């Protein structure tokens, strides 16, 4: 049962590598924009620790926006997917969880945070499928259900959920068509999705397109 989770979780990793953030460091503008831009720059260069640290510093100052902590969680979770060293994964996911917890405590109505939690769970499942697969796959589906209830048209919610479901369906030899339809829907939604601010999450289209290929 749990082996299948590895299969599809590994699948998630490969897709998670690239972030669609197009923000560039701006030489002008206010401190927040500069800082965020700088952090994205570091992340793009592959300096994950530095990027995460800067996001953390921004988060410590800008307590009214959830974005810096969200990115602390995202940077560390995506690095965890790309790491083999179990101890490092532990530290990275703990860091991600701490950052996410801070924002979850402030706002329980943000679909992006639920998707983020689901990703952290998925990383734990990959970490130890035998133990965590049984424990976390139920709660993870529940997180996606909550996210969908809050933001039924958020392409990341639709896509991530479909992706989580697709792996297990494949194992059971079940038809993956319903998930594929959802991926198609997500791709359409991506084209019309307007991030609330320049730094709001907008990633996912490339991965959805990649996943779509596997549907055919």
């Amino acid at each position, binding site marked *: *049962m*749990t*082996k*299948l989770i590895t299969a599809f979780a590994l699948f998630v990793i490969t897709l998670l590598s690239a972030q669609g953030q197009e923000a560039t*460091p701006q*030489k002008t503008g206010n*401190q927040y924009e*500069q*800082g965020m831009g*700088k952090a994205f720059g*570091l992340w793009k260069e592959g*300096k994950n*620790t*530095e990027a995460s*640290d*800067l996001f*953390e*510093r*921004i988060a*410590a*100052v800008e307590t009214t926006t959830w974005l810096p902590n969200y990115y602390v969680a995202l940077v560390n979770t995506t690095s965890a997917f790309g790491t083999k060293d*179990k*101890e490092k994964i*532990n*530290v990275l996911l*703990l*860091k991600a969880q701490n950052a996410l917890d801070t924002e979850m405590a402030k706002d329980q109505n943000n679909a992006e945070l639920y998707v983020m939690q689901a990703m952290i769970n998925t990383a734990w499942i990959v970490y130890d499928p*035998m*133990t965590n697969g*049984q*424990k976390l*796959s*139920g*709660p993870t*589906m*529940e997180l996606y*259900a909550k996210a969908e209830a809050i933001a039924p048209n958020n392409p990341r919610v639709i896509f991530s959920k479909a992706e989580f479901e697709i792996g*297990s369906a494949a*194992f*059971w030899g*079940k038809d993956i068509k319903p998930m594929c339809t959802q991926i198609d829907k997500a791709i359409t939604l991506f084209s019309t999705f307007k991030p609330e601010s320049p730094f709001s999450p907008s990633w996912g289209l490339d991965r959805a397109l990649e996943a779509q290929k596997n549907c055919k």
Partner: protein
Amino acid sequence: MKTIFTCIILFFTANSFAQTTISGRTVDQKGKPIAGVNIYIEGSYDGATTNENGEFLFVTTLTGDQVLVASFLIYETTKTPIYVADFEAKIIILKENINTLDAVVISAGTMESGDKARVSVLKPLDIVTTAGSAGNIIAALQTLPGTQTVGEDGRLFVRGGEANETQTYVDGLRVAQPYGASTNNLPTRGRFSPFLFSGIAFSTGGYSAEYGEALSSVLLLNTEDEPDQNKADVSLMTVGLGLGNTQKWDKSSLSVNASYINLAPYQALIPQNVEWNSPFQSLSGETVYRYKFSTGLLKLYAAFDSSKFDISQENINAVAKTRVDLNNNNFYFNTSYKGNFGNDWQIVTGMSYGFSKNRITLDLDNVNNEENAAHLKLKLKKNFSNLFKLSFGADYFTTQFNESFTANLGTTNTNGYNSSIASAYTEADVFLSKKFAAKIGFRASHSDLLEEFSISPRISMGYKVSKNSQFSLAYGDFTQSPNAAYIKYSKYHEFESEKASHYILNYQYSVDGKTFRAEAYYKDYSNLVKYDSATAEYNSIYNNNGSAYAKGLDLFWRDGKTIKNLEYWISYSYIDTKRDYKNYPTPVTPSFVSDHSLSVVTKYFITDWRSQVGFTNSFSTGRPYNNPNETQFMNGKTKAYNNLSFNWAYLISQQKILYFSVSNVLGTQNVYGYDYANTADSNGVYKRKEITPTADRFFFVGFFWTISKDKKDNQLKNL
């Protein structure tokens, strides 16, 4: 790394303010550089990440007095007041954070499973996927080192101790009657289904001062804090059927399960070594209700179990078989609250109540007994710092036991006792460093019935010698009231508590997916109950002059990594023990002890077949028995015991599982011991009868179906 600095500098030079350079190095307490530390000026974005040499350098536009923060997950965050104009090439020392994952955990005596366990000896799933365990928590634990396979009894025998020396706790509260009712040579099983438990800690000695009234071992079962989702479970088995349902609301949840077991079909199919007049039947149910407060969790747990059977067993002392007709009703309830308050205070409180009633007919005689047992608990814990934690608490145990015996057409004799024990304990957790930890405490206890007061010290410590290995030591004194079979005669005799001291040395090595444990122990018993008659009677002469020792070595190796899809563990126990108790004329190894025990458990997942296949082999060397034809006491030894069990779980679809298991595949004719006649025959020979399993094999086929909204969950974890 240089490029980052350049980058940062370039970035900040874009600003036109005056800038100051902040630079330095971060090192640990030994002076080793720490990379990846986030260094910044509090309240600003200005900062950097240290490089491999622990160096950092950044510029800031801030001036004057500021606070420099150094933060890194596995170290304590430090805040250093600085004067911006004068902070270059300074050294910041970080202290290790004890609360992190790689700190030492005292592991002497205890084997844990579940979420909180850092090194899992047993995973929650294992209880149920171990071949031969058939969903019995106790049977799964018997594959761990330090336990004895006593097939005719079924209970946990730990390190030379009797079964009643192990105390069971659910959510920190005592379970007075943890086993189903049974009779002579008919094995019992644990009363609890693994269904509702998410964590198990099994201590084979040297446990915390929080637990008392156990000479050998404690088994701690914790119910799930929060179920995953709403679901219904249906099980159809060759031995009965089961139903379960879980409902979840915003802050609370309720799980209920019930099962009916009837062994008639199994007993009809497989040849039985005993005669069943009426098959084993039981109706049982459990329920857990949980409510989440903002700072705590309330749990209510209730279990009820009603079972009966009627059996005729051969008796070496009689021509006719002895008939035993048993009815047992059992009820267990507990409520616990765990929460945080004030400044780093934690409270755990609750009460448990257990009721057991047996109605046993032995041929024409009647035995009725009834036990009411309660436990009240309060525990407080305060975290003074990451280095020092103090906990203290109190327990109150009360037990009321009554038994009546009516011989055929004869008079009725009643015996019983009322016991109450009040205890208080305190324990300190001290971390001297991340590598060295100690737990020091004691337990004070007063028993009304025995009119005695005792103080038991407990000390344990752990030292981490390298990244993956550590040593632990434990010492403790333990006391326990003599078992009900004796103290029910309290109105005729004065008894004292039985005592034991444990000395344990443990070594543990664990790397990703592999664990090795070795534990050597010495156990010293004193004050054991002795009597002068063939069996313990009201008019026997009792004393507390018995003693015993047990010493041995337990080894455990678990590996889920080396071979893909294969998880296995090997347990080996060696024990040397002699006991002078009961009516023993000399100290001898008691009949429930095998010198060497070896268990090998394997689980192999075959992806293409969607199956998990498991084998468990338990082997133990012969056990002593007393042969009255020989002059020397307890001089006999049975042949070795071996049992190979097999199970197979097939996932029909995601929520439907077909499960098959069979024990003793090889059909080994095991002999647990011998019953000898009370008197010699005309030739002066005491005749004997083998004590064997009730059947050579047990087999089981079940179909398990989970119905839930997400269509993902299944009962694999319960098999």
